[in-house]
Every structure is written in structure tokens, then in C-alpha cells.
């Protein structure tokens, strides 16, 4: 409730709530990152941030989605509902960090705008296919974007300004979008990271989370349905004047709300059925109000009378029982209804009274000791919390603070190992040698250069997702010198030419030694971009990296085929990459969108210096 708006209406409970949230978040991210770093030496800081924020957001979304139905089933969980919007904003923030980093890593620095590159690189795989296996190739990034879009809408409209200006009904309608966000995230995870990770723990956890959430929502819906079905049947009496039976007086407890469902009358419009009203017994009189709080539609009938005002159980908004108006200086109003007592039953007219109409209520002849009841623990965020609710909230908080990080740690432990490889990012060295452009851009050197392991050939790539940069093109056969950063893994070494100003042509270079034919063969493996595979990205293979690999290959990064031996204990072996060129010794003409898919390459293996290059006669997708 507010007259003007403040950024956050802080109180002690909200501060405690947010402190627990922050602690849980740090514990979850810390557990995942710590376990991953300890068990996966190849993990980079970017990967840790990318994955830990995604995991934390997904786990938090499960908590958010569980709080609603849990509160319907057990009012003690209303303590968690009180500040749920902070959970939502935090979830969006985590998702935003994840998305921003993913876009930067996998989409930026290529030939297309970053977001388009990430979302549109293999969108043709959305096309329906008769093969179920094709489902595994459907882009997953777009589902993450949809989820983030909905989470943004929910976070952006979480302030009471929006509740007031959209109206509680539209606001609530908008916030049902959380279901679409969750469904999109399910698909994002299943079509993304679960296509690259093989541990059964992932689908099990995802499935358990889904079943628990669906079960809770189903149980809450059943409970609500039972309330709707509780309408008392018609009975002769004042019903002829339009009044409907609501409940028995003996069901009412002093200052405790009761939800009554009015049976639809013969002339009522269909949308009026069934009609919920909140009935309150207060100081010997029965009052009937709308059951829907003006704030977020909370059930007033589950509230209590505090300081003479009907108080919503969700966020503590208050209305006077006799006229439905919030106490000054607040101005919110809920409809009230005319009530009567007949033969120990409360009868309510379904037509609301004019806004703000004062009502004397219906006088109850009920013994004071009978009406008086021991107050049930009732939570109002801005008031001291009853002891039993504090105990329950503590237990839940401790369970979450221990359980969620435990799950995060387990998820971190069972990831596949990341490939090793090194990208000397930010370390610029000088290189000199003869530049060749075919079959693949390379620098032929006659000794160690730039601190590289002695190699006679260093592949050349540009900054980001570019092949040989423009400033170096057309200088094939020349002796050149330039600055760059090394990328190396195994016998694959390349240089990122990231300093155009340093590029110098020193004169004509000695012609490279002719390629040595090694024979013809067919290789089967994953089509990869060799820059990421060399050490720039971890992971650099599989579905999660597909958009990036496509962008790299599209930009001219040399393609390679990654062949691997048998897996060891479920872990794919690092394997080795054979570079791919065209059959004529020029660059290969192929479809970059095959990146990260299994292909067969048939051709003649040739040795260029110490690099094996398959002069590919045919590159095809395998059936699997």
C-alpha cells in the first residue's frame, strides 16, 4: 500500500529475506564454480560465470514457481511469498548476465550483429523433419531468448507503479508469463547443454524439478477447484430477493476470514459463476467483501482483521471491513456486499454495493466465547512475525541454503571435461615468416618465432571470428612480420593477427616445400572451427558451441574434422583435428551450418610441413 512510490518499501523482513537470497545465491554460484574449478582444470572464468549464472537462475525459477502453490496449500509459506518479486528480479538479472556473456562469446566479433549471429545461425534446423533425431539439432538459443524476454517483462513491471497502472488483473495476467518462461527454459536446457552433456543427473534433476512443480500446481488447482465446488445449493428463503447462501455462522471465527462461494442464480451471467466473497466476523457483525485484493489479487478471505482492518495474507494490504476502503491516507477500495443472517446461515447478495458504501454488517447472535478464537499465526511482513512462522521460515531457508548449493555442486561435478588448449589473450608477440594463403592461411617459419614451440607452420586467423584478416590478404608468398597472440593445442598452433599496424611486408619469401601426399582416406568426426578448438573457447565443441562455430567458419576460420577414440568412462576423449581444404588445394567450399555436427570427409591426406590437411573431395553429413 502506498500513497506515493518509493524504490523499495524496506522493512526488517525484506532485509532478512534479501540477505538470505544473497547468501543462497553466493553459496549456489560458489558451490558450482568451486566444484567445477576443482574437478575441471580446463574450465575458464567465462565458462564458470556463464554456467553458474544459468544454473542459479534455473534453480531460483523453480523456487519461485513452487512458492505460489505451496502458499495455497500451506499458509506458512506465505512468508516466502511476501518478497517474491525480489526473487524474480534476481532471476532475470542472472539470466541477463548469462545471455550477455553468451552473446559476447558466441555471437560477437563475427560477420553479423551478435544477437542475430547467435539466434539465426542455424535457424533452418527449426524446419520440421520426419526424423526424430533432427530434434536434437533444433536451435536452443531462441528458447533462451524467449524466456529472457518474459523474465524481463516480469521484472520490469514488478514495481507497484505497474500494478497500479496496469490494474491487478492485467498485471497478474502478464505475470502468468512466468509459465511460458519456464517452458522455454526447459526447451533451452534440453536442446542445448543436455545435447552436449551425457550425465544422467541432468535429465533426472530437470525431470524431478518439473514433476514437483507440476504436482504442486496440480494440487493447488485441485484445492481451488474444491473451494469453487463448495457453493451451497439453493434453498427457499431470502434467496428470492437475490441473496445466496454463503456459509454457516458457526464456521466463522472472530477476525478470521472465510471464503464463501455464492451459487449462481437463474438470471446471473455465466461469468458470474461461481462468485467468491470474503466473509469476516468482526465485533459481533458479519461483513462481506470482495475476495480479491486490489494489490495482486490476493485472497482476502484467507486474511485476518488486524487493527480493525481486513488484511490481505499476501502483502498485508488493508481495507476497512464496513466499507472496503483502505485506511487513510491510502485510497484503495474493494467492493463490499450486503449480508444477512437467516437461521444461523450467512446470506450474501452477489451484487456489490456502490464503492465505499458503509454497511452495518449483519448482527450475529453468537456467544462471545464461541466467536472468540485463538488467533491463528498470521504473517504480515511489516509486523512482528509470529513464532511458529519464524521457525517454519527458518527451516525452509536452511533447507534451501543447504540443498540448492548441494545440487549446484553435483551439477558442476558431472560436467564433461573441457578441452585443454591455450589462448594467450592479451599477450602480444612478434612473428616473422613466409605467408601462404593456400590451402589454408599459414605462416611458414624457419625456427621458433613469437615464443612458439618450434613449428614450421603456424595457422593464421584474424581477431574474433575472422579468418586471415583483410590487411594480410594478397600477400601470399611474401616474407612478413607482425604482432599477434598465440593459440595452441597439441600439434595445432595458430596466431591471431590482432595488430594491423604491426604488419610489415619484408619482401619475397622462399616458396614453401611441396605438400607430401600421405594417401586417401575417409574420416568421420565433428566439424569444428579450429580457432575455438585450439584453445579460445571451452567448450569448443558440441551443440552449446554450434552458433559460435558456424560464425567462425562463416568468417573464414580454417575448418577441421575432430576425430576421437573410444570414450573413457563416459568422457569423450580429446581426439585430434585434421584440417580440411578443398580438393584442389584451395579453401574448402562447404556449408558452415554443419559445424558441430558429425560429418564424413573423404579425400587425400597431405602433409604441409607438420600440418596434416585433408584435401577433401567430399564432405557430407552422416546419417546419425
Amino acid at each position, binding site marked *: 500500500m502506498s500513497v506515493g512510490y518509493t524504490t523499495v518499501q524496506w522493512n526488517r523482513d525484506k532485509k532478512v529475506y534479501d540477505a538470505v537470497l544473497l547468501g543462497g545465491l553466493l553459496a549456489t554460484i560458489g558451490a558450482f564454480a568451486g566444484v567445477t574449478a576443482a574437478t575441471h582444470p580446463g574450465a575458464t572464468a567465462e565458462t564458470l560465470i556463464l554456467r553458474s549464472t544459468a544454473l542459479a537462475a534455473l534453480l531460483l525459477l523453480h523456487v519461485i514457481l513452487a512458492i505460489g502453490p505451496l502458499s495455497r496449500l500451506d499458509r506458512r509459506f506465505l512468508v516466502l511469498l511476501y518478497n517474491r518479486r525480489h526473487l524474480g528480479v534476481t532471476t532475470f538479472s542472472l539470466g541477463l548476465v548469462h545471455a550477455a556473456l553468451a552473446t559476447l562469446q558466441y555471437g560477437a566479433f563475427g560477420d553479423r550483429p551478435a544477437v542475430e549471429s547467435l539466434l539465426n545461425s542455424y535457424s533452418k534446423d527449426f524446419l520440421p523433419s520426419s526424423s526424430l533425431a533432427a530434434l536434437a539439432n533444433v536451435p536452443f538459443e531462441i528458447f533462451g531468448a524467449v524466456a529472457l524476454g518474459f523474465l524481463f517483462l516480469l521484472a520490469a513491471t514488478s514495481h507497484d*507503479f505497474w500494478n497500479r497502472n496496469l490494474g491487478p488483473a492485467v498485471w497478474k495476467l502478464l505475470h502468468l508469463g512466468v509459465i511460458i518462461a519456464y517452458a522455454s527454459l*526447459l526447451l533451452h536446457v534440453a536442446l542445448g547443454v543436455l545435447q552436449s552433456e551425457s550425465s544422467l543427473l541432468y535429465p533426472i534433476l530437470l525431470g524431478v524439478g518439473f514433476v514437483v512443480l507440476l504436482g504442486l500446481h496440480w494440487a493447488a*488447482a485441485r484445492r481451488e477447484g474444491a473451494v469453487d465446488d463448495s457453493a451451497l445449493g439453493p434453498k427457499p428463503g431470502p434467496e428470492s430477493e437475490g441473496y445466496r447462501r454463503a456459509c454457516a455462522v458457526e464456521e466463522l471465527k472472530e477476525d478470521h476470514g472465510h471464503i464463501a462461494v455464492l451459487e449462481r442464480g437463474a438470471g446471473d451471467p455465466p461469468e458470474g459463476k461461481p462468485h467468491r466473497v470474503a466473509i469476516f466476523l468482526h465485533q459481533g457483525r458479519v461483513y462481506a467483501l470482495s475476495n480479491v485484493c486490489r494489490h495482486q489479487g490476493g485472497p482476502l478471505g484467507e486474511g485476518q482483521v488486524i487493527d480493525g482492518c481486513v488484511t490481505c495474507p499476501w502483502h498485508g494490504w488493508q481495507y476497512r471491513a464496513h466499507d472496503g476502503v483502505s485506511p487513510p491516507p491510502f485510497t484503495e477500495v474493494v467492493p463490499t456486499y450486503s449480508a444477512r443472517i437467516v437461521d444461523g446461515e450467512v446470506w450474501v447478495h452477489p451484487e456489490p454495493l456502490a464503492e465505499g458504501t458503509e454497511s452495518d454488517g449483519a448482527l450475529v447472535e453468537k456467544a462471545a466465547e464461541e466467536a472468540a478464537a485463538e488467533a491463528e499465526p498470521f504473517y504480515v511482513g511489516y509486523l512482528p512475525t509470529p513464532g511458529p512462522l519464524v521457525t517454519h521460515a527458518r527451516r525452509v531457508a536452511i533447507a534451501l541454503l543447504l540443498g540448492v548449493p548441494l545440487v549446484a555442486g553435483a551439477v558442476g561435478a558431472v560436467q564433461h571435461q573441457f578441452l585443454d588448449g591455450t589462448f594467450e589473450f592479451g599477450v602480444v608477440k612478434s612473428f616473422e615468416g613466409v605467408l601462404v594463403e593456400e590451402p589454408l592461411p599459414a605462416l611458414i617459419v624457419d625456427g621458433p618465432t613469437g615464443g612458439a614451440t618450434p613449428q614450421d607452420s603456424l595457422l593464421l586467423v584474424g581477431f574474433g571470428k575472422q579468418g586471415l584478416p583483410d590487411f594480410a590478404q594478397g600477400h601470399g608468398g611474401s616474407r612478413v612480420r607482425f604482432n599477434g597472440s598465440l593459440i595452441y593445442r597439441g600439434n595445432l598452433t595458430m596466431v591471431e593477427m590482432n595488430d594491423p599496424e604491426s604488419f610489415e611486408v619484408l619482401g619475397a619469401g622462399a616458396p614453401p616445400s611441396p605438400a607430401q601426399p600421405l594417401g586417401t*582416406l575417409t574420416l568421420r568426426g565433428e566439424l569444428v572451427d579450429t580457432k575455438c578448438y585450439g584453445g579460445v573457447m571451452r567448450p569448443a565443441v558440441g551443440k552449446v558451441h554450434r552458433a559460435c562455430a558456424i560464425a567462425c567458419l562463416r568468417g573464414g576460420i580454417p575448418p577441421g574434422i575432430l576425430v576421437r577414440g573410444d570414450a573413457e568412462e563416459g568422457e569423450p576423449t580429446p581426439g585430434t583435428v585434421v584440417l580440411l581444404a578443398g580438393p584442389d588445394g584451395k579453401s574448402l567450399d562447404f556449408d558452415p551450418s554443419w559445424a558441430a555436427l558429425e560429418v564424413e570427409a573423404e579425400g587425400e591426406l597431405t602433409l604441409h610441413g607438420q600440418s596434416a590437411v585433408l584435401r577433401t573431395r567430399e564432405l557430407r553429413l552422416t546419417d546419425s
Partner: protein
Amino acid sequence: MIAIALQVLWLYLAVGALFALLFQFRGLVQVDSGVEDSSLWTRLLITPGIVALWPLMARKWARARHGESGEGAAEAPVTARGLRLLHRRLVWILPLAAIVAALAISQRPAVPGSGEQAPDLGLSPNALPATVLAPFTPFEGIPLEISLRGQAVGRVQVEARSPRDLAVPSAWLYFSVEDLPSGVAATGTAEDSDGLPPGSVLLGPVWGPGVQRYALPQGETGSRGSLSLYSLGWGRRVGSFSLGANESAAHSSAPSAAAPTSAAMPTSVAIPTSEVGAS
């Protein structure tokens, strides 16, 4: 399609950003007087929503300018029961999403090399047991076992088995109908011992862990020949052995003295003649 959708989205958000800027100065207080005394932080907090829902706020602003107060009014009357019903219907997208997700997970590619045996080359179940050559270690600490299997249909299959990844340096297996030059091990010169025998045919790459299978070229299996293991990283042959059709003694070769590992010499093998070339 996605590219066009993104262009439309950027345009929508750009208009929204411009509108939000104007709205903060001109229309916001008209639409909701509660903002009048609010802090800058509060105004900033509601700005992303204005950018996203600018058509809605523009309509409210237009109404406010015509004297219609939109404060606190719901844009559309949705009853609590209506919301509950909508909620119930919307929840049905979750099982649908879960089914698609489960199908997608069921179709995920196997871990490369996981449970996938290298394709057998059509040997019948009653093929003779493999003739295993003595394991040798062409690369430091990595034993490699080459074996042969033959059967009556005239095929001979070579199997290379290694418990570890041979990716670095990568190794390739060659077959040559030419036997190894006599005394190659004793000679040990770079040209003689490191090169491939003339006419060598690439059988395939050798990498571990696990087993790779290769077929010896048809029609050649009854002849003498040799298998050579060639290291791409080192640019030379690192091991080889002779195949003798009917003899038990054979040549052997050794890695050159410069080889960084001590490789036990592979021995020659006699391809089981009763099983080879019978067709």
C-alpha cells in the same frame, strides 16, 4: 525470418526508449500523480517497463490529456476466476514442453566413441582368433597392440588397440605390398628407416583409446607386405612389421635412434594361410 523479427524488435525498443525519455518529463505525472514526489531511482526503476510497454502508456497518456484519469484502472476486466482458468489452461504448455524436451534428450548424440565399436569388417562369427603381435610402445608410455584377423572370405582385418589417446602426435597406419627393405633396422639411416615403403596405402588414422579396424586391400593379403605406423607430428615412421604369408621369420624395423621413445620391436606375423585368399 528471425533477422526480420529482430529488426522489428530493435525498432520497437528504440521507439520505446525515445518515448520513455519524453514520457518521464512530460506525461508520467499526468498518468500517475503518485510519481510526482518519487526519487530518481524509482523513476529509473520503472523506465524499462515504459520502454517495453510504451504503446500502453502512450494510450494512458492520451486519455489523461483528455481528462480521463487512468489511475489504478485495470486495462481489461479479468476476474480472479478468469485468471485461475487461464492459469490452468496455460499450465498445459508445461507438459507439452516437457514432452518435447524429453524427446530431444532421448535423441541427444552419444558421447563420441561411447559404446560404439569400430565397425567390424564383415568377419563371420567363426573367424579365427586374432593373431596378436607383441605390444610395442611407439610413443612414450603408450602401448599399442596390432593384431590381424583373417577368414575364409579372403579378408584380413587389422586391429590397432591402445589404452590411451594417441592424438598427439597423431599416427597413421599404412600397408605396403613391398616388404620392408632388408636390414632396415640395422641400417637405421633417416631415409631408410623413417620413410614409408614404396607404394604404401593409407589404411587410416590410429588413435586411442580403444580399437580401430582396417581392411587390408583385397587381393594383396596373400602376398608379402608390411604395415607401417607413421607419426604425423614427428614426420616419420615410428614402427613397422612385415607380413609373411608362409614364413615364420620376418623382418622387423626399429624406430630411429632419434625417436624419443624406446619402442619394443614388433615381430612379423604369418597370416593364417588356410583362411586367407581361399576364395
